[in-house]
């Protein structure tokens, strides 16, 4: 039994699940009040689904004011939680397992080759493989973009310099929406891989514990292949 995730990482991970879910749900409810980007009397180049609301079942908050109240409260949970996580990862040196390192493109390519069965054995690339590193490293960056674009549309007059940096209110709103889509896409990829490749990582993210023989490397696991752990092997002849 190995300790895989520190309590701070586990707690911030699950707080983030709740906060992000509420932020996305309430954000979509806010978006539905005007599911478009164009300024009145203008057209907008880059959103093909103007005027088509998001299905209500994917939204949270019940109505515009409810959604706004949730959004503007939960944003603090999201930001503080994110800062605690980043602060911990930085001071405890965990960032070394997360930042891209030399050869990441080649390593990522090896992972892709393995998943499409060109390569037979699971590459061994440390605590997280190259694809995981790319996702886990992008996540806080896209999250920060979501926060900054969010501030830009919250205070477009008092913090006009920030909103102008984003190309104005209409574009800031668009970037905020795209950042949300990217976060959702990364989350879906992450959750899919957890269930399809490494369900035991769920235990690790709850209890913190992990066993080497549960790992995808030991199981040679591709999505939905070799999900069960290796039986324990005798490691040395008994005297």
């Amino acid at each position: 039994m190995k300790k895989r995730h520190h309590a701070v990482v586990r707690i911030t991970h699950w707080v983030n699940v709740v906060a992000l879910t509420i932020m996305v749900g309430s954000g979509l409810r806010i978006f539905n009040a005007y599911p478009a980007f164009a300024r009145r009397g203008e057209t907008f180049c880059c959103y093909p689904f103007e005027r088509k609301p998001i299905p209500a079942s994917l939204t949270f908050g019940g109505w515009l004011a409810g959604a706004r109240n949730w959004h503007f409260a939960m944003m603090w949970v999201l930001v503080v939680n994110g800062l605690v996580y980043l602060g911990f990862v930085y001071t405890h040196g965990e960032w070394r397992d997360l930042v891209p390192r030399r050869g990441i493109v080649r390593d990522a390519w090896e992972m892709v080759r393995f998943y499409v069965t060109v390569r037979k054995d699971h590459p061994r690339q440390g605590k997280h493989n190259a694809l995981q590193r790319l996702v886990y490293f992008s996540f806080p960056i896209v999250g920060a973009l979501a926060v900054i674009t969010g501030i830009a549309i919250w205070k477009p007059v008092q913090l006009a310099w920030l909103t102008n940096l984003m190309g104005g209110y209409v574009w800031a709103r668009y970037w905020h929406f795209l950042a949300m889509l990217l976060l959702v896409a990364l989350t879906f990829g992450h959750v899919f891989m957890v269930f399809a490749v490494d369900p035991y990582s769920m235990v690790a993210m709850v209890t913190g514990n992990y066993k080497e023989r549960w790992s995808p490397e030991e199981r040679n696991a591709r999505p939905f292949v070799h999900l069960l752990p290796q039986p324990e092997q005798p490691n040395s002849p008994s005297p």
Partner: protein
Amino acid sequence: MSEPRPPRPPLSHLAERFAIDRRRFLMASGGALGAAVLAACDSMGPKSAARLLRFAERKNESLERVLFRHTSMDVPAAGAKAAGSHFPAYFISKHVPVWDEATRGVWRLQVGGMVQRPLSLSLADLASLPRTGYRLDHFCVEGWTAVATRTGVALADLARLAGVQPGAQYVDFESFDDDYHESWDIDSAMHPQTLVVYAQDGHYLNAAWGAPARIYSPVKIGYKNTKYLTRIMFLPRRTGGYWSDQGYEWYGGV
């Protein structure tokens, strides 16, 4: 030399059992999470959260007040087209509110409350006061924006004319659109771009846009800007508002 034989310590048994429990655990937690998500969909969230949300709103207001500057001015993008006739009309009455002179007499704007000289101004009086106009963004709470040129009298000028007393920390803007009103903090009301507007895009307001006069400021979200204005009251405490009493942020700053 002995044959290697698989040792089966009790710990490993536990681990195997744990592996099955783990699957159950995953399914149970997945199911619970799914149920929670389904239950939460399109809901307003738990009732008990209401107090927390109000607390967050008050904290946000404090922060917004700290950020607030009279020198932060709204400047619409140079290339932005004026909304013109695309500017949405909005009111809470069943029909477009129109001031009926036959039953109510000539429309006048009252300025009262904590002032040394209460004012009562006709549209002609307003139009003869020093004129302020800006090309401004309109930030609707729904998320859309629209550009229009607003012309009228700076509220700060009216406040000087009326002699507002120092204890007046809030301003309430009343209307003849049913009981629509919204109250503001005095700081936002005295922003140089806060105007008593009587003309939009160079023409006197039409009934759909709040004639004869309305409040407009880019430092407040659309719903804070009372149309069909009748009375401006300088007050010692806040008096809520039509939308802020229903759950929208009272401060509604931009």
